[in-house]
């Protein structure tokens, strides 16, 4: 495109600059925790909550809340990046890693290379399995030591912090192995298929 126009008089109003290696391009730091969802927040009771792991159409395993809570717990402290431009630094999440879920069903190697995450309310998102293993992805049930609030995806949300946060599907209920990659909800509506914040992969074609 043409030369970038300078906005006269526009300057950074940030009191302190976040180090460049902490903030992906086009992002800014926020200290609160905005809520972005496409529809109403579902009110999910843990008594009736289950999480299913599926291979194509068949069920590998289904956990009740109590069974899920008994799985090994992992805590991570890291930054999160929303495609709507805000980033939040040093957030602490606790849950069960994808690797520990696989271990719990006796899988040493993932059977397929892609996952579709399905949520209450019909939301879906697709993620390569390689982005979930080795501690890269988990099902998170605690945020800063407290149960994840319904508006932030509680009782359980996917947590894949190295991708834009729409990939960390709220209210996740089912993880489905897929042989071929398919777009989820936002991925089919103009957003990027993979969503790497450091490459600024916000929209289709980025």
């Amino acid at each position: 495109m043409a030369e970038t126009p300078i906005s006269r008089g526009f300057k950074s109003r940030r009191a302190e600059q976040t180090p460049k290696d902490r903030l992906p391009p086009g992002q800014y730091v926020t200290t609160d925790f905005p809520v972005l969802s496409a529809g109403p927040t579902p009110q999910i009771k843990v008594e009736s909550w289950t999480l299913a792991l599926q291979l194509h159409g068949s069920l590998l395993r289904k956990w009740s809340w109590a069974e899920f809570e008994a799985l090994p717990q992992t805590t991570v402290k890291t930054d999160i990046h929303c495609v709507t431009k805000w980033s939040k630094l040093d957030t602490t999440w606790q849950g069960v890693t994808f690797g520990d879920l696989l271990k719990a069903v006796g899988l040493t190697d993932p059977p397929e290379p892609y996952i579709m995450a399905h949520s209450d309310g019909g939301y879906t998102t697709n993620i390569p399995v390689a982005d979930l293993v080795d501690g890269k992805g988990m099902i998170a049930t605690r945020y800063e030591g407290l149960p994840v609030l319904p508006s932030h995806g509680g009782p359980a949300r996917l947590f894949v912090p190295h991708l834009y946060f729409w990939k960390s599907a709220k209210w996740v209920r089912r993880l489905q192995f897929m042989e071929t990659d398919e777009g989820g909800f936002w991925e089919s509506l103009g957003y990027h298929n993979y969503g790497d914040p450091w490459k600024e992969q916000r929209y289709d074609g980025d």
Partner: protein
Amino acid sequence: MTETAPGRRLDWQLAQVREIAVETFRVKSLLLQVPGWQGHLSGQHVDIRLTAEDGYQAQRSYSISSPPEDELLTLTVEKVDNGEVSPYLVDDLRAGDQFELRGPIGRYFVWTVATVWPLWLIAGGSCIAPLMAMLRHRARRKARIPALLIYSSRSLEDVIYREELDAMASHDPDLRVVNTLTRKQPTGWAGHRRRIDKELLADACFQPGQNPEIFVCGPTSLVETVSSLLVELGHDPLGIKTERFGPSGAAS
């Protein structure tokens, strides 16, 4: 408007400010000329990028408030105290200035007249912008689809597009505009004076059996409350589309 072909990048484009309209004491509309604009659907947004003299850049998202039929692309911006981008857009920007934008973005929170279901819009404050694009689209097309806007503002002075909404509703028997003023009401105000609650949503509004297409846009607390109440009232959660704006969400 045609759908963007898969894989086609949304490039940054130059936008020139043609006119600035004062909407309220803290809200302005920027009327932009965007050469080569590919068109949009009502409800979509754009990303804008400002560049400082030292090369510092900031990006934010703003909803489009103009309908696809208009020549100029309009963004309606509320000044957020201590914000970085909105005070510049509201206080410093002048007609003739240029900045970069790319879009349109979002293909879910959109509405076109190619529908048979009633249109129910619920807005809080400046989050009315994308919903206004829908009402303007409906008006430009002279569509007779029944429509209802419930609009929550702090005071009468905070009601954005007040004259235009009044004029629209007075010429259109199929459109109803319900204002509620939550903090301050003028003397003799006969309308609602409380936050949107269950009674207001149940009272003389579309019933679940009418399958309204519902769009709720406002601060997070308003959207959480209203969308939960709509589900309680029997509306299909999948028929309720929401956009939430926190203090540092898309509207900052």
